[in-house]
């Protein structure tokens, strides 16, 4: 029995890495999160659409993706079959963790999806509008506790940007970091914090069932199907999107980069990808080539500024 078990485990352990795969995608996070789901959706669509015969996903969790990116940059150098999922959270994490490996050390291919941030309060709260929240924030920044995801992530940056736009010192915000959207949601529903800030998807079913009140959304224009004013309309000049991207390994040739980009474009244009976006509530924010590189550089610069202003990066 034992020999059989051990043998089968060994076989399983050996079989995984030995399998011939066209692409291997690293999700620099634990199974279950947004990056993991992005990687696994890519895996399915790439295989379904026959863009790639076999795709495998591996998880390297930890530290906002900075552990994964460090491993990816050093181990996959020159490997044109290796992909990594990443996103806006990684931009912030690289800065706050002072990661020696940055997005400059990999080959960014394209932005794939995005979700806007929303600000919510429990329905029982006496805060009825984003204006009420800002009034309270201006009167005493510490009295407004914001519940959201990890420190230095998109949610934290969002709270900092809102405070700044309202003319409140961003270092004074009382941001309570939770290990994930789920734990933050519990604290918001239980009225443990004043307001919540996270991706729309995290709060969607609570907003629809009426247990959370949606105050504002961080998009540039109103989003169809979401009944909330934008922050811009409310007089706060903040547009913020939690986007996700895919990158290839460093040191690949220009032809290889072109081939990967072409495959990713096929992926994004496929019907099954579009269908997956719909069921998951992700927006198609596909952007590749020089336009993406430019946008990425802009995002990194603005993130560094706000993280310095919040006081997370010196």
């Amino acid at each position, binding site marked *: *029995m*034992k020999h059989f*078990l*051990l043998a*089968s*485990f*060994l076989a399983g*352990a050996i079989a995984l890495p030995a399998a011939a795969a066209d692409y291997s995608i690293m999700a620099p996070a*634990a*199974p*279950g*999160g947004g990056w*993991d*789901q992005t990687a*696994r959706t890519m*895996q*399915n669509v790439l*295989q379904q659409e026959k863009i790639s015969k076999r795709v495998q996903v*591996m*998880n*390297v*969790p*930890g*530290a906002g993706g*900075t*552990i994964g990116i*460090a*491993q990816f940059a050093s181990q996959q150098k020159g490997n044109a079959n290796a992909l990594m999922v990443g996103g806006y959270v990684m931009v912030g*994490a690289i800065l*706050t*963790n*002072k*990661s*020696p*490996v940055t997005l400059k050390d990999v080959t960014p291919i394209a932005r794939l999806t995005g979700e806007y941030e929303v600000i919510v309060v429990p329905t029982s709260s006496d805060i009825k509008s984003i204006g009420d929240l800002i009034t309270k924030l201006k009167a005493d920044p*510490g*009295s407004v*506790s914001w519940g959201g995801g*990890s*420190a*230095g992530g998109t949610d934290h940056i969002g709270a900092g940007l809102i405070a700044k736009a309202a003319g409140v010192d961003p270092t004074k915000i*009382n941001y*309570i*970091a939770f*290990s994930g959207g*789920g*734990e933050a*949601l*519990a*604290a918001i529903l*239980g009225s*443990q914090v004043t307001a919540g800030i996270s991706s729309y998807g995290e709060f*969607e*079913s*609570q907003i*629809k*069932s009426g247990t959370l009140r949606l105050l504002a959304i961080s998009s540039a224009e109103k989003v169809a199907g979401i009944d909330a004013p934008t922050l811009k309309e409310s007089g706060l000049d903040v547009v913020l999107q939690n986007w996700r991207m895919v990158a290839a390994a460093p040191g690949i040739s220009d032809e290889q980069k072109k081939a990967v980009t072409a495959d990713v474009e096929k992926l994004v244009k496929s019907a099954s990808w579009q269908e997956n976006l719909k*069921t*998951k509530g992700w927006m198609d924010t596909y952007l590749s080539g020089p336009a993406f590189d430019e946008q990425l550089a802009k995002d990194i610069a603005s993130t560094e500024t706000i993280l310095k202003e919040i006081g*997370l990066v010196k």
Partner: protein
Amino acid sequence: MSTFEFLLQGLVSAAEPMNLFYALIGVTLGTMVGVLPGIGPATTVALLLPVTYQLDATGSLIMFAGIYYGGMYGGSTTSILLNTPGESASIVTALEGNKMARAGRGGPALATAAIGSFVAGLIATLALAFIAPYIVKLALVFGPREYFALMVLAFVTVSSAFGNSTLRGLTSLFIGLALSLVGIDQLTGQNRLSFGVPDLLDGIEVTTMAVAMFAIGETLFIAAQGAQAPDKIEAIKGSVWMTGQDWARSWKAWLRGTVIGFPIGAMPAGGAEIGTFLSYATEKKLSKHPEEFGNGAIEGVAGPEAANNASAAGTLVPLLTLGLPTSATAAIMLAGFQQYGLQPGPLLFATNPQLVWGLIASLLIANLMLLVLNLPLVGLWVKLLTIPKPWLYAGILVFATLGTIGANPSVFELGMLLVFGLVAYVMRVFDYPIAPVIVGLILGPLAEQQLRRALSISQGDVTVLFTSPIAAVLLLLAATALILPLVLRLRGRGDVLNQMAASED
């Protein structure tokens, strides 16, 4: 349709031959990954997600349910037989279970774990079906200060698991607490004690630590004894099955474990480990045989094993009622739901009752199947111990290493496994208990974060920690648990003094 009719309908569909087959695959896979340290149910479900695209929603959910419960159960087998916890929730099981196995009582230990898991799974699944909406309301009342009070209670009660010397136990605990500080601080995003090593940014993995402390440390300890060590562990002494006395001592522990595990599992920041700690401490307090604790007390296996399975069902409460995944496995199951266009949340019970009840029914079926699958295997598993020692311990080393690499393919992680194995060896040689290190590593960060969150929300006002009724009650319980033994001891000494005075007369 009434609740009962939905449940019956779910049971009928779950009992179809094809669905039973999926359940069998699920529980078998689940048990196997539970056995292998490092590879948890979350990874397995994630790997299987693409496979289940071919199945219908019911079939794949049944398989997930099997993996989920199987994983919780499988961890106990290696804990008991090899002192190698496969999951962090079965660390406590190793404390008494492995002692029992060494004394030739591995059979009853495995049996009480299997039946306890079944009983707890059954009760907790029924509770999930009928009182989930009420439990979730209770869980939401728990904010940072209540969690902090719960952690204080856990610290105080668990200290009874610290062996015979308080000083040594506390030393071990503080080693664990110090190690728990390593990594990025959750609340500010700043690095602590990571010395520029990227692998340390995310802190020290609990399962790596547990495997190193228990399995590697023990292997080194046995190897160092060389020829002096007793030649063979007596594999079977007395019956392989539970005796009447075993049953009598187990059933209350199962029930108490369930009552403790289920609500804590349902709390968004609860987690399965805390339930097992509290259950172990409770059993030790209430046992008529406290002297057996530390030497293989059956209650110490029965209670925590029931608690971890009950908390597995508890985790599904916030998932189904709020759409709130509180464990990695639950997060993947959420992704599985979304694959079929379902959004778990407050509306799920109303919009998709067949599916919810199908899931609950399949949990019941998976639970039963686990028992059917595992009880006959107990006799076989116990034979593991008859393997000659060099083979057995070499096997454990391979097992531990593979599991660690499987969970995190990194050279650094492997190095950490060996270094902490050496630390555990030294601790064993000098008679320091191992378990408190793991307790500190798990509870330390939870207590710290919740305390800081509570104080941050209150803007530094310490009194909030006592002004919530739940927190106050929990802290009061903790204070009682701390002070009562002291008072009793003082009174005991008073009696002795009186006797001495009396005898002088």
